[in-house]
């Protein structure tokens, strides 16, 4: 009785929040159209039904496959996704159509992930597959004929009519690998150590796979010129190592490696120098490379505290406003108050991820939750910080909000895995009954049948 009510209360909280997200999205959509064209959007009622239908579908999927999960994940994603979509639609009708299609695919990927991965152990079993697949995906854009460069970074792959960024999926796969690898070997890594110049370091053989993965990903990112993703991967590895081993030396070592890498990259690569120069003084190249970040700041200032109102600013003056700079576009139109709500939503999402990591009963689940949450938080920081000139601008997408199919689908997969871990923990803690999953029931049924068949024959 008590167990059932935990699940019920979590799911009704989630339902209330996703409906609220849907209503906010639809209202924002209407306001943006009124603001921009002074026109009520055509087919606004079908649009509202579509949005509410999507969030309701997401909720039903969670209810069916992970009823014990934390109720914060899905509503926050829906809220961010919805507002991002409204801004994309307000900037360009054509992108809106494509993004709507990707939204559907994202939801399908979400459902598929929750249905296919019934137990977190399913993921753990495939750690080396994940590593291999992750590395292949990372290297794919470098394959001649497949990969291509867009916006200065060679991170795209074109297969037939579909263009995508395999790196978005690689980060999830590598997080899975690291979580599994570290969960198995953390004791070994901590115990076996060597001392070099008075510093305690783990034995090389324990670290080798990690170092290889790290080196490959960083090198690839340098060749692909995707600084943001490079930084993201690096942070992910260091943070996971630190959490797994509880050794501060990894953080120190990571920091040192990062500083050295940054220095070398600055000396060696002109595109890195350019980024840093623009960061330090965009006004030195106001009509050149500094144009985009300056327009973003102008837009933010134009929005001010309360914003111009949706549809009533000029975010189209910011190049790539729908993509890397969507945060600036929103800052202009919904103001400090509005984008603070967006930052709060990310903080809540990250908070839910960290809560999941804290509650998780198995090391693998803990580390995977930490890894996936760190990806979301650090990626948000890298791009928002880049737009706000906290750090040099490096092009990564803003999770759930930026235009782009790969990113959206990958983030929904990531979200589904977090929800899976959260649900798994609720079962481990007996907050909800740990009933058999669909495939387990199927397996049982087959076993029984074959047992019956065998029994009948004997």
């Amino acid at each position, binding site marked *: 009785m008590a167990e059932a009510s935990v699940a019920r209360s979590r799911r009704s909280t989630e339902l209330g929040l996703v409906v609220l997200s849907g209503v906010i999205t639809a209202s924002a959509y209407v306001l943006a159209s009124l603001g921009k064209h002074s026109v009520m959007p055509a087919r606004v009622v079908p649009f509202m039904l579509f949005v509410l239908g999507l969030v309701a579908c997401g909720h039903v999927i969670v209810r069916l496959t992970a009823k014990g999960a934390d109720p914060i994940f899905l509503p926050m994603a829906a809220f961010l996704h919805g507002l991002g979509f409204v801004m994309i639609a307000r900037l360009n009708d054509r992108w809106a159509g494509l993004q709507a299609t990707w939204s559907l695919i994202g939801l399908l990927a979400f459902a598929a992930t929750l249905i296919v991965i019934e137990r977190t152990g399913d993921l753990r079993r495939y750690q080396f597959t994940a590593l291999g697949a992750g590395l292949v995906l990372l290297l794919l854009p470098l394959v001649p004929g497949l990969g291509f460069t867009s916006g200065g970074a060679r991170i795209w792959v074109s297969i037939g009519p579909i263009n995508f960024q395999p790196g978005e999926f690689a980060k999830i796969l590598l997080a899975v690998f690291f979580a599994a690898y570290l969960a198995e070997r953390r004791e070994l890594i901590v115990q076996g150590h060597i001392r070099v110049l008075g510093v305690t370091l783990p034995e090389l053989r324990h670290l080798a796979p990690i170092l290889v993965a790290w080196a490959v990903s960083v090198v690839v990112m340098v060749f692909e010129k995707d600084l943001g993703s490079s930084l993201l991967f690096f942070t992910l590895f260091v943070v996971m190592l630190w959490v797994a081993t509880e050794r501060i030396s990894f953080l120190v070592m990571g920091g040192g490696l990062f500083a050295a890498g940054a220095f070398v990259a600055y000396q060696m690569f002109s595109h890195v120098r350019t980024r840093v120069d623009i960061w330090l003084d965009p006004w030195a190249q106001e009509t050149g490379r500094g144009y985009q970040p300056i327009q973003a700041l102008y837009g933010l200032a134009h929005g001010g505290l309360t914003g111009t109102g949706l549809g*009533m600013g000029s975010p189209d003056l910011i190049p790539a406003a729908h993509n890397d700079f969507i945060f600036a576009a929103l800052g202009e139109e919904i103001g400090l108050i509005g984008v*603070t709500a967006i930052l709060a939503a990310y903080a809540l999402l990250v908070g839910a991820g960290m809560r999941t990591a804290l509650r998780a009963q198995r090391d693998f689940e803990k580390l995977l939750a930490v890894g996936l949450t760190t990806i979301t*938080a650090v990626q948000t920081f890298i791009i928002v*910080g880049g737009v706000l000139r906290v750090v040099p601008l490096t092009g990564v997408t803003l999770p759930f909000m930026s235009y782009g199919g790969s990113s959206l689908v990958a983030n929904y997969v990531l979200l589904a895995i977090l929800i899976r871990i959260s649900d798994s923990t609720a079962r481990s803690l007996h907050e909800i009954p740990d009933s058999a999953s669909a495939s387990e029931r199927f397996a049982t049924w087959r076993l029984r049948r074959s047992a019956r068949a065998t029994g009948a024959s004997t």
Partner: protein
Amino acid sequence: MNQRIRRLTVALSALFAILFVQLTTWQVVKQEELTANPNNMHALYSQFDKPRGTIVTADGQVIASSTKLPVDSNSKFDYQRTYPYGDLFANITGYYSWGYGRTQLERTQNDVLAGKTAQQQLEATGDLFTAGDVTGSVHVTIDSRIQAAAKKALGNKEGSVVVTDPRTGAVLAMYSNPAFDPNLLVSHDSNVVSETATALQNDPRKPLLANAYQERYMPGSTMKVVTTAVGFDTGFLTLERIFKDERTWTPPNTKKPIRNYGKKVCGGDMAEVFRRSCNIPFAQVAVEIGPDLMVNGANRFGFDERVPFDLPGAAASTFGGLAKDFSDSLALLAIHGFGQGEVQVTPLHMALIAGSVANGGRMMQPYVVQETRTSSGAAIKTTTPQAWKTTMAPTTAATLTELMKGVATNGTASCCIALRNGISVAVKTGTAQLNPEGQRQRSHAWIMGFAPAESPKLAISVFIKGVNDEVSASTGGRLAGPIAKQVLDASLPVMP
């Protein structure tokens, strides 16, 4: 591991705090500095990426509208404002320009056109289930046919034509030459805009000003309508009054004599001196009436007061002095009595003066905005005609009408004003002499009046600026008369 996870959570929260602090820096702390940067075009652009309502004439012609540009157009904005009639309505609509401001109805009716009035916003939210435009429309009293007739009749002469409905004050036509094409000022090509603007600003004829109501000119003999009305109302003048035939008359306190137009001998009964437009009788009447009553009378006509008009920047006509100024110099009062000296009237006001005679002494407040409407057609604001001044007693108005009919049939305008189909018309001409005696002749040509004289539907004033010999050699009747006739002939058939 949990302790590390907690620390990580704290670290990530710190990152978000940094973002928030930096966000506040840009959006609040440095907001003013960034907004003030002349390169920050965000505020400017957002105005021009929106649709805007139409301005429509009384006969249903759209004279200003916005069209959505195709997505692939090279323009920096999504919408292009257009004025389909070019310069014809430039002084009515004005322009809504990027980088060059906005004027006229585009300025005064901005909220309606942009859909910003409370009523429009409210209607939009109630409109949740249908797609619809919230921009409003402005419906003006101007009739495009009368306006076109005015432009055509005026031709290339500098000046203006104003036609009103004397019963309501509705302005049916108001055209000033020189005009300008507002389309050039709303171009999205900033070179076109700046070249046009520079050329217009440097043009000595001041095409950007609507000379029909933003400038004032010496009225000449058309002013005699005012002097006559004040004379009748104050009892100094009757129809029985006979004026001596005189060539010159020297008013008190001066040695400088007053002459009639063309230095002729002029005199006779009231009707005769009015239709022949002798100067001396009206100078004498003005002096008889005296400074106090004369200034008071002029003020009853709205002199020295801005005409309450719903287009911006209306000039005030002036009688040219206070009562005490004229007490010191009765000669000045005498000259002002027939519209010379410091008296100045706007062409719009002149049409109102004619209209007040037509309307039994009630001068209606002029207006061009008949109604503003929401996108669904509901009225936001409808103009109710209202009287501005009571200029004269109804009996005086009736007498003046007869005098003005005499001008048309048998006086200074008899050459030129007879209307088609024998419709009666009441007018007064004016030839305002600008040059001091002995210098090269320079004069404005005026005519003002109304038709049909018995049941007036139209009041008109035509003003031709005395910029060249051709204009200055002629008289109000000969020059402005035919223009008034042409406009009235074209307008009367379209009036209800």
